[in-house]
Each structure stands twice: as C-alpha cells, then as structure tokens.
C-alpha cells in the first residue's frame, strides 16, 4: 500500500519566479542601463577591473557577515574589527615587526574579538544587536588608541603590494576576495559545521533538539567572521597604504545590505554566499556607474538606501508568503 502525495504547492507562479530571480534581474538591468549610458566605458576591461577592485574589501567583509546571518544573527562590529586589524598590523610593522607576523597578530585580534562576540551572544545570551554594538564601540576606541587618533602610513613596500600589486593585470585583492568567498562557500556547503549553521539559522529549537550544538555553532560563526573581517581590514590598509581608526566604517552597513540583497536570490530566503556576492556586485556597479555618470554623491546615497529598502522588502515579502 503505497501512498502518493499531492505535489507540494501548485507550480511556480510567475510572481514567485520574479521574486526569486528579481535581484539578479535587477543587477542585469543596472548593468544594462549603465552600459547603455556609457557604452564606451562601462563594460571595458579597465572599468570592470575597477569595480571588482573597489568591492573586493566589501566582498570579504560581506562574506563574514553572511556567515553570521546564516546562523540567524548579525554583527555590527565587523567594520570596526576590520579597521582595528588594519591599524594593529600597521602599528606593528611601523614598530619593526616583520610583515607576516604583524598580519598574523592582526588576524588574531580579529579572532579574539569575534570570540568575545560569540561568547557574549551564544553563552551569555545577549542579543546580537546589543553585544555587537557594544563591541563595535569599544573596538573603535581601541583603534583610536592604536593609531593615536591619526592615520598610520609609510607601511612596508611588501605589505602595500598585497593591496596594490597586480597579477595578470588584475589587482591582488580581487583574487584574495575570490579565494575567501570560495572558502566560505565551501564551508557553508560541504562541512558539518556549515550545515549546522544553516540548521541553527533555520530553526534554532529544532536544531538544538536534534543534537546540533547550537551554542558552539554560533560561537564559531562569530569567531570566523572576526578573523575574516580582520583580513579584510588588513587588505584595505595595504590597498590604501595607510590605516586609520575608521577607514572601514562604511563596510558594516553595506555588508548587511549585501547579505539582505543576497537573501532574495535563493528559494529559501536565507542568507547565502552567492546571493551576497550578487548584492556586493549591485552595490559596486551602482556606485561606479553613478560616479561615471557624474551623479552627485548625496543623490547616490539616497539611491543606495532606496535599493536596500527595496531588497529588504522583497526579501521579507518572500518570507511572508510561505
């Protein structure tokens, strides 16, 4: 006696396909629009390289944010951690510490702060908002201390090369961002740790009752995010050749925006790395395109905000319709 079940839900309506593909379509539409406006420039190799270069740091930090949001939390301190890491690496190198040790220490700082965040949130049960807001505040203060309120510069040539060097005429940070995103994507997709993150983010109670160590999963998510953001900050310092206490501050908001944009890309509406990269690309394309068109930067800010609102609304509509 076999049971055949009725199909899950009556077919995929056009609306649902649009909702799902909507963000990617938006990206293609944006590219199409800017291309039409400046066909000689917009999709040229130089400009594409330019866009990728400009978003490489954001891509790294957005990967970190993706991990935290997959688990169902978010992290307000990632921008601050990246600035602090850059500042620590710079300060150490200016103090004569060899480059790779300085980088490792800076990454270690990111790891410790991520660990602190994870502990506060997963074990002491603070809300992610409160805990990461508090960490952010303290971390910015630390960054000011490390940089003595100014901008550290005159960093070693080898270090700057990490951010400004090129391979096959493409800047190194682009490769670094791609590698980091691939690594994080693989962790999310293929490891038990990554799957336990997805389970926890999907329904914490069910995951817990099924034997997933939810506390440890959350702790590890924040810790990884801390390290990855630190790497982003180190690369940013190399890119600019300087480190200030606040130079990564934009990236926090944009990383959250990118992840939200990315959430609209897949069926389940959960945070995912591929979608985040689509979101990062949208942000980069918009900024570059509007710059090329000479649009006032205040107007750019308004438009960016509107796009984020649209994305978040799309994302929540999608989650509401189930």
């Amino acid at each position, binding site marked *: 006696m076999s049971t055949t079940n009725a199909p899950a839900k009556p077919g995929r309506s056009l609306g649902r396909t649009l909702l799902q593909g909507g963000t990617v379509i938006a990206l293609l539409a944006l590219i199409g629009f800017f291309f039409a406006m400046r066909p000689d420039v917009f999709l040229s190799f130089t400009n594409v390289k330019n866009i990728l270069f400009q978003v490489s740091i954001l891509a790294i930090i957005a990967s970190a944010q993706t991990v935290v949001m997959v688990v169902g939390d978010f992290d307000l301190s990632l921008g601050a951690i990246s600035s602090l890491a850059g500042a620590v690496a710079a300060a150490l190198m200016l103090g004569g510490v060899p480059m790779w040790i300085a980088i490792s220490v800076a990454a270690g700082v990111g790891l410790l702060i991520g660990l602190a965040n994870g502990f506060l949130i997963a074990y002491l049960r603070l809300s992610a908002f409160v805990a990461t807001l508090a960490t952010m505040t303290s971390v910015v203060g630390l960054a000011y201390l490390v940089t003595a309120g100014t901008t550290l510069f005159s960093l070693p040539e080898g270090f700057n090369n990490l951010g400004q060097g090129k391979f096959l005429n493409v800047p190194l940070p682009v490769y670094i961002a791609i590698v980091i995103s691939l690594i994080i994507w693989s962790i999310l997709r293929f490891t038990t740790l990554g799957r336990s993150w997805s389970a926890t983010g999907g329904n914490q109670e069910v995951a817990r009752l099924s*034997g997933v160590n939810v506390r440890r999963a959350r702790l590890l998510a924040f810790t990884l995010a801390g390290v990855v953001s630190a790497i982003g900050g180190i690369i940013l310092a190399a890119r600019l050749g300087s480190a200030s206490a606040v130079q990564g501050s934009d990236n926090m908001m944009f990383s959250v925006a990118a992840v939200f944009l990315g959430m609209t890309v897949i069926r389940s509406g959960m945070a995912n790395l591929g979608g985040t990269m689509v979101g990062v690309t949208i942000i980069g394309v918009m900024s570059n395109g509007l710059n090329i068109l000479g649009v006032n930067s205040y107007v750019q800010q308004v438009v960016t905000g509107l796009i984020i609102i649209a994305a978040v609304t799309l994302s929540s509509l999608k989650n509401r319709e189930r």
Partner: protein
Amino acid sequence: MNAATTTVDSSHTIALEARDIFKHFDGVHALSGAKLSVRKGEIHALLGENGAGKSTLVKVLTGLYTPDSGTIVQNGSDVEFANVRVANRAGIVALYQELSIIPSISVAENIMLGEQTPNRGGLVQWKTLRRGAQEQLDRLNQKIPLGELAGELSPVQQTMVAFARALATNAQVLILDEPTASLTDTEIKDLFAVLRKLRDQGVAIVYVSHRLEEVFELCDRLTIMRNGETIITKNVADSNIDEVISTMVGRAAGELYPERGTATSTVALTVEKVDGRKVKDISFTAHKGEVLGIGGLAGSGRSELLRILAGAQKHTAGTITVGDKTLRPSPGVSRALEAGIALVPEERRSQGVILSATIQDNIALANIPGVSSFGLVSGARIVDITRRGMLDLQIKARGPRQPVGELSGGNQQKVVLAKMLARKPKVLLMDEPTRGIDVGTKAEIYRLIRELAAGGTTIIAVSSELPELMGMSDRIIIMHEGQISGEVQAATATEEILLAYCYGKADSHVNN
C-alpha cells in the same frame, strides 16, 4: 546503522513505563501518581480532560520536566532524562503541533539532522546522507523529493519528514500530540496507514488526542487520566466512547460555590451571528446579574469569543450590543471599555498586570480617565481607588505600593479584577478566572463573582473545569470547534451532558 528490522514482538514487551509520577508547579499539583505503560508495537491513546495532566506527563517522559518523585523504566531498567536530548538519544521522541522541521534546508538534511549527519572529518558525506534519508522515507512509504526545501512541503508531508527524523534517531517510543489537528480527512487516512506500519515494525506510539473517534479507529489500548492521576488502562476493543467520557468525569464537587439566583430578566448583552477567525455563527444573550459560564475543549474558540467581545479582536460578521450600544467590528479595547465591557484575561502574568509595577499603578492603568482631571492624573484618586479595591477584594499585600510581581497568584488575579472593576463595567468577561490559584482564594473569587452579579453586573466566564462551570454559573454555554454546541441551566447540568457537548455529541444517548 538505523535499519528498523525488529520483529514484531507478540509477548507484550514494555517499551516505556512511568510509575507513580508526582509533579507540582508553584504549589499546584499537575501530576499526583500518574502511570503509563506503553508496549512495543502498539498504538496507545492517552486521554483526559483539559488539565488532567496529559501534556505534563508527556513532558516528563521526554525529559522536558523532571518529576518530583516516581520512576521511569525503559526496557527493564530505571532511567532518568536530564533534558530532551538525553531522552531523544534514548529513543523517546515527542512530535508536537508546532513547526518541527527546519524549513530552509532540504528534506534529506532535515531527516539526517544533527547527530545523524554522516560525516568524515567534518565534511558531510552527501551520498550516505541521502541514502539514509531515503531509507527512512521508504519505511514510511512516503514519496517526498529529498532535495526539496522542507518549508515548501504541505503540512502532512512536513509531519512525515519529522517522523522520518524521529525514526532516523532510532526512536522506539513516538509520542504524538494532536497530530491530526490541521489535516484533511485523506491526509488523516494516510497518516494512520503510516502509524500502523510503524507499529507493525515494533515502534511504540503514544497518541494524545481529543478526537475520540480517531482513537477508537486507530489505537490498541487507552489510558485515561483525571486530576493528575491515571484512572484506568484498557484495551480499546473492550471499551466505547461513552464509557470513556464517563470515566473522564467524576470529581467531588465540594462546597466552594455560593448560592445562585441573581439573574434578572433584563438583557444586558446581545450577541447575534458573530463570526471570528475560528468562531462561527455565535448567538446568545446574557442578562443583568447573570453569571454565564462558557465551556469547551482547548481550541474550541472560547478565548477568541471573549477577545472579540472585549474588543481585542475583530469580528467579521454579526452584531454585539451592550445595553443600547452596538460595538463596531474593530472597536478596540478602550471603546469596548467605554461601552461597559471589561476583560480579565487568561494569562494574568503577561496580559493582566505589569508585574514590576505597584498595585496602585496597575489599578490605575485601565482607569486613567477615572483618576484624572483636565489631563492630569490625580495621585489622591489613585490611592483612593486602590484602597477601596484592596479592601473589597481582600487583596493581601503590604500596601498599595507593593510590586504586583511579589504577590501570590491569587492576589495577582484579584489585582487584575480590581483594575477592571474600577471601571464599573456592565459586562465583566473572565478567561479562566481561577487558573493556578489555591482553593481558598478560589472560593473567595467565586464569592466575589456572585456579589458582583448580585449588584447587577453581568459576568461571562470561560473555564476548562466543568465542576467550576457548574458551580459558579447560572447558565452554561458549551462551544465545540468554533460554534455553540449546547446550552444548559447550571442547576440541571451534569458533567456527562457538558462533556458530551464538549465533544460535539448531542445528549440523546447520555443517560441522566
């Protein structure tokens, strides 16, 4: 691995047994010597009225609660479950109505979740995972695509996935709480087929449900609880629905209730053909000075009805008239209060009072117009109203400034009452007025209710306890699945009649 190839055991091996379980919360006894014995390869129904202790017993069996005393025996040895995970690992799994799957990941992953996920060095072995998931689905004879996101499945499919997960953990005892509540008839048939299959494979199934027809169609044995105790365990074949209903009943009435007889013939409230989300076509009248009791099983729509009357929820059809005022479909609580309807809600701790605020602040809450002039709140009037309330209701506290959270349950309930009474309502609605309150205070509250009625207030009270309904009301309305199934004068009501109405049965074959 987890292959279920146990042979059906015909010698009645006991899979799980609970003996003499006692459990209390805040002085209220939820379980007083409860017992349950479940055999391998049977479907065993757990029955009882609201408050009989069924869900508490289930929570004890699955490790959510630790019993005060008593033993749990599994496969012959005593066991103790420190938490749910330990119980799950021991093979005891409960499946509830609430979402028990993770909607954002695939069916296969849901089934092989957590400790069941096959992995090597941290990398998931996807082939093995899919195979394992398919195995469980085959056991249940379900064709559900492994790659589909669990959130996109229909409710019954989701339940099946939850079953599959329970089986993947090698569950030996499956406890189901109202599994058919949101299923269509065809889906129920399918579910039963699956359950029988599992039973034949040797799984022990505990079936908690109010739907007695289902129980008699599906289950092998049944256990009836009452008042936290287990009354009887029988083979279903040796019993029938009426007998079950009679057995569920049978408490000593006690002398808690004052005399009736304050109802007048003046109509205070008219409800005509009112529809809500669950409730349909509700029509009744209530009189000045009358105590109208509303009964019914959990989920029958009683609380919703009160919320609609109180203006906290909108009604989509019909009219509600208080005196000469007709309430609009979405009146909101303050308009309802103005019209003279006040509600003492079910969850006093979260809906009735502000625990951290003082008694006088709580009482002033619902009555700000009454304690203010020209937009300024009068401290003197607040104190005055509070003192009077405390005296009238005999609220035992250090003083009007004591935080309500420090009072006993009974006194907290009195604060809620005082708050509502300060508005001098025409109709007072009460949802479970004596839940979680000691017997002595219960008696006081019944007396207060009768006094208020004598003073002309109309009281409409929802209660899950039939004796309470019969004792404190003049007239009783019973609801069943959103509609009124019966109306009785309290003086001539018996628990059997009321219970029959609760289950939607006409009283033709219940003998007085």
